[in-house]
C-alpha cells in the first residue's frame, strides 16, 4: 500500500468477523437496556455495549464506514434528544399525582422508558467521544475533506 494513502480499517479477517459480530453485540446491548427490570444490566451498561459495537465498527472498518452507519451529527442529536426526554421525565415527576398518572407510565413501563433514554444518551455520546478522541483528524486532499485514523499514517 502506498505510504500516502490512509489505510482504511484492519485486515480482511478482522473486518469479516467484526461485520458478523456487530449485530449480535448491538442486540445484546439492546437486551441489557430493555430487560433490566428482571435481569442484571441497565441503561448505562447496555448503552456502553451499544457504543462498543459502533466502536468495533470504527476500529475494524475505518471511521468512514462507522460514520456512514451513525453520523456524528445524528449521534449527538440522538443523545441530546434522550437527555431532553430524561429532563421531561424529571419535570413530569414533580407534577401533582393525578396529572402524573396521565403523563407518565407506572411501574415497569416508567423504568423501561428511563432505561431506553439512558441507553440512547450513553451509547451515542460515548460513540461521539470515541470518534473525536481516538479516531480522526481531518485531511484535505484535492478539495475534499476526509477523516483518517490518527496514528495510522
Amino acid at each position: 500500500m502506498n505510504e500516502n494513502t490512509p489505510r482504511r480499517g484492519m485486515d480482511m479477517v478482522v473486518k469479516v468477523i467484526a461485520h458478523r459480530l456487530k449485530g449480535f453485540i448491538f442486540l445484546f446491548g439492546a437486551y441489557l437496556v430493555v430487560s433490566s427490570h428482571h435481569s442484571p444490566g441497565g441503561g448505562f451498561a447496555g448503552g456502553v455495549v451499544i457504543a462498543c459495537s459502533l466502536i468495533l465498527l470504527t476500529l475494524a472498518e475505518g471511521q468512514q464506514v462507522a460514520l456512514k452507519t451513525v453520523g456524528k451529527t445524528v449521534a449527538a442529536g440522538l443523545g441530546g434528544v434522550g437527555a431532553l426526554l430524561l429532563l421531561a421525565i424529571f419535570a413530569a415527576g414533580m407534577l401533582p399525582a393525578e396529572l402524573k398518572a396521565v403523563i407518565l407510565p407506572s411501574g415497569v413501563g416508567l423504568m423501561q422508558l428511563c432505561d431506553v433514554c439512558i441507553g440512547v444518551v450513553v451509547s451515542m455520546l460515548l460513540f461521539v467521544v470515541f470518534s473525536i478522541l481516538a479516531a480522526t483528524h481531518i485531511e484535505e486532499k484535492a478539495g475534499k475533506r476526509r477523516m483518517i485514523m490518527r496514528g495510522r499514517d
Partner: protein
Amino acid sequence: MSILILLLVLMIVGAIIAIETTNMLSSIVCIGAVGFLLSISFLFLGAPDIAITQIVVEVLCLVILIRATITRDLTTVSGDREFFGLTVSLALILVIGIVGIKAMDAFPRLGLSVMDRITDTSSTAYLAQAETATGASNAVAAIMLNFRLYDTIAQVGVLFFAIIGALAILRRPARKGGREAETETDAV
C-alpha cells in the same frame, strides 16, 4: 472469601506493576487487568449489575486509552524527589492508613452489607417493597429506576455535561493538528 482476598492481592500487584513499569502499553494492560479482577470480585460479592457495568466500562476505557493516548507524546518525570515532599507524603499515607485500619474495625466483614445491622432504614423498606410496588423482579433496577429515579437522572445529567464539555474542548485542536500534519507531509 479466600478467593476474594486472592483477587484483591492480585489487583494490588497489578496496580503496582501499572505504576512501576516504564512501558506505556503494559501499564495500560495492567490497569485493564485490575479492572477485570474488580469485575470478578463484584461477581463474588453478589452484585452482577455492577459487575456488568464494570467490565463494559473497563473495555471501553481500555480501547479509548490505547487508541487515544498510545500515539501521543509521553511526558516523563525526571530528577530527584524533594526530601520534604517525600516526608510529608509518607507521613500522610501513614496517618491515613492508621485511621483507615481503625475505621475498618467498625465495618462488618468483607462482603456483608452495612445496612443489615440497622433496622428501619430506607434500604430495608426498599427491599421489602421492591417487587410489589414496582413490578420489577430485579431489586437493584427497582431502586435505581423507581425509588431513586431522580438520582439516576442526575447522574446521567452529570455524564451528559461532562461529555459535552469534553467535546467542546477536544474538537478544535484535533482539527488544527490534522491540518498541520497535512502541511508537513506536503513539505516533505
